[in-house]
């Protein structure tokens, strides 16, 4: 007889519990793995792989509640497919750097796509999570409702935690209706003109859901009710991109499909690296050489070039933001920007509070813990 889905999931959960129990007993670090699509990001993973791919499946989906609950190993493509079938979606457009990414990995990485400036981040849409942490305990924080202020909001801190606070087993996410209509316009202009135009966009009643500037072109995406999208297109008075080409462009940007985001080995060996600079949208950067791609109405600048890490980090900090070293031959400068001492103390104590044995993805966020 075929085992029921629930039994199969339970068996997968037991395997995770066993593996964590063994690791705790031996103080053996675990590398928490979903689809294994984001190993290049952050500090290098190390430890014995803890595979969560088997802990999969949508547990509960009520379209009229705008909430979906899924196990951590559920493929992101499966989740987004199930939502699309009911006319809904994840508002934050999570990146898929390679096929096979999972819901747990999406939350742990905390990365959001082109829609982030308009619609919010993955963190904003986490409603609850069940984790395995501490001394092997299963704990649930948050829930399946949109408004919930009981206890500290631990579930949202998991977004972008890179696994250092424990194993995400299950998450509940707020979902939104799909957009009825979408259109992408192109304006040929330089980076400075693009940023000047973007500054004036915030006050227009346009349903702008994404913007990007790359290699002499500003891309604007409007999405929402048909009438509003049509009106914005008429007002903006710019060339429209063919819908298929537009969809491919935004997916390529989201997933880093373009070679700009994936320097070849030769370029890396020459000392080129890919940086992610998160800045106040209107902040100016000094000329760092290299090449940039601007997203989020100016709040996200992907930068590729050969400038020294200290120079990039100093420029980002002076502009009021921070810089992440995404792809490089040498990440000894640290993948993530260093923290002020008072904040680092809190980080260390928090990590010890969730992972007293130091077994969950040690060193994945900052070297040494």
């Amino acid at each position, binding site marked *: 007889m075929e085992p029921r889905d*629930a039994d199969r*999931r339970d068996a997968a959960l037991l395997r995770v*519990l066993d593996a964590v*129990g063994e690791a*705790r007993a031996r103080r053996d670090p675990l590398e928490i793995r979903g689809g294994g699509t984001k190993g290049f990001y952050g500090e290098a993973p190390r430890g014995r792989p803890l595979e969560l791919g088997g802990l999969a499946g949508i547990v509960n989906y*009520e*379209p*009229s*509640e705008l*909430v979906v*609950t899924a196990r951590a190993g559920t493929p992101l493509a499966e989740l987004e497919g199930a939502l699309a079938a009911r*006319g809904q979606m994840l508002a934050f457009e999570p990146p898929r750097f390679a096929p096979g990414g999972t819901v747990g990995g999406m939350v742990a990485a*905390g990365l959001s796509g082109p829609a*982030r*400036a308009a619609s919010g*981040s993955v*963190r*904003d849409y986490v409603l609850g999570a069940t984790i395995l942490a*501490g001394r*092997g*305990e299963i*704990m*649930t924080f948050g829930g399946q*409702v*949109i*408004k*919930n*202020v*009981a*206890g*500290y*909001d631990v579930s*949202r*801190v998991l977004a972008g935690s890179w696994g250092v*606070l424990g194993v995400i087993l*299950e998450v509940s996410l707020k979902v939104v*209706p799909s957009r009825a209509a979408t259109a992408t316009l192109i304006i040929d202009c330089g980076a400075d003109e693009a940023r000047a135009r973007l*500054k004036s966009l*915030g*006050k227009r*009643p346009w349903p702008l859901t994404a913007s990007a500037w790359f290699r002499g072109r500003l891309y604007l995406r409007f999405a929402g*009710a048909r*009438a*509003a999208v049509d*009106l914005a297109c008429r007002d903006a008075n710019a060339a429209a991109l063919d819908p298929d080409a537009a969809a491919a462009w935004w997916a390529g940007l989201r997933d880093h499909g373009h070679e700009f985001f994936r320097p070849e080995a030769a370029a890396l060996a020459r000392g080129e690296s890919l940086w992610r600079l*998160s800045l*106040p949208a*209107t902040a100016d950067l000094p000329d760092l050489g290299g090449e940039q791609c601007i997203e989020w109405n100016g*709040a996200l600048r992907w930068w590729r070039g050969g400038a020294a890490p200290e120079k990039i980090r100093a420029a980002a900090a002076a502009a*009021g*933001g921070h810089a*992440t070293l995404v792809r490089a031959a040498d990440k000894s400068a640290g993948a*993530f920007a*260093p*923290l002020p001492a008072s*904040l680092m103390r809190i*980080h260390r*104590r*928090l990590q010890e*509070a969730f992972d007293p044995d130091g077994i969950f993805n040690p060193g994945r966020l900052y070297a040494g813990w």
Partner: protein
Amino acid sequence: MNPTPPIDPHVRARRQAAVLAALARVLPRDAILASREETTPYECDGMSAYRESPLVVVLPSSDAEVAATLKACHAHRVPVVARGAGTGLSGGALPHPLGVTLSLAKFTRIVAVDPEACTATVQAGVRNLAISEAAAPFGLYYAPDPSSQIACTIGGNVAENSGGVHCLKYGLTLHNVLGVRGFTADGAAVEFGSSALDAAGLDLLPLIVGSEGMLAVITEVTVKLVPKPILARCIIASFADIESAGRAVANVIAAGIIPAGLELMDRRMTAVAENYVHAGYDLEAAAILLCESDGTALEVDEEIGRMTAVLEASGATRIAASRDEAERLKFWSGRKNAFPASGGISPDYLCMDSTIPRRRLAEMLLSIQAMESTYGLACVNVFHAGDGNLHPLILFDAADADQLRRAEEFGADILETSVRLGGTISGEHGVGVEKLNSSCVQFSPAERAQFFAVKRAFDPEELLNPGKVIPTLARCAEYGKMHVHRGLLPFPDLPRY
């Protein structure tokens, strides 16, 4: 709430003298209040059933004074309770009898409004509405609108993660705050979030927002501003029974519409509100829905059309859409005055604040009806229907101790029923001291222990607003009700490693 044990007046006097001496070294004299006459206004917040006399109240006027106050209190191991406008509804700002109440009332400066970046940086004591007023010349506003917005401060909103009638579409405080600055319990300066859309390291902003002053004292907040909608229109729809009103709410959402506001009032609440403001509500309806659309004229007209069609198909017995701004405000006037209107028909009321999955609404309201006879008290209901956040108002007379006791038990029953229906004990008012017992039902011992561990990561000596939000093991044991297992995991009895 459990009564706190009485404090020996000699112990209190000695402690007060020591604290005053330490504070006098770092604060100007007029920033320190210690006599009973001066500290009485600080004895409670909006949850006036719970009162406590603070040892000392301080009103610092600069970051340096806040840091110095915290350092002095830290050195003497004195608890500190930060306080905004004191409009909170769960006793989160209830003073500590041997602690310092730190009022941020003097932090009223709007530091900067940046119309290009659509952000505002303001001090923690700035009123919620004052931010929108400062942004108005640029066509912008701050979206979260708790009902107390003319009085409540942004610092208090951050502490409580406040919502409001527009948060289904525009999000809670967390979704509209970019960064905060302040101090940890030892007086060290710290910043969470930033003016960018994310910050390096763990994203600790969601822990700070909604932490009820237990993790840090916040003195400055940077918020996101959004363009003021060109037009807003509101529909009032009547329903002959609660079930069809609840189904209509689900149908609106299922049709892919996110209303700017979606509110439900039951028949008795409608009558109370109508009597107070004369909004022209339908007094025959078992429930009325207020459903708002905002945006450009084109968007709003299209959406009002779609909303009307869904509400009609859901069995609305009467539908009216506002024709102009004056009429829209009239439609809202009763809902916005629901709490004061209830104050007019009863000496006191307890305002509950649980959230449930929307589909359980009818079940919840029927349970509340049954509880009215169990506890012998009346209850009227308003509901942020769009996001499942229920505000039953339990009517009672606090002069009668037995009525207060029954009202508290009635409230706890509502909260625990909400947890059983898959919801939570607080949607937007916070746990404070009011819902400590109910927290025992929502969280397992391991989860509560984890909350304490989170607190100690920020505040190892547990000096900031101690005793709020997280119930101790002992308290839960005394309360004696079982934790309701909420997780969908199938092995609640698995051995722990």
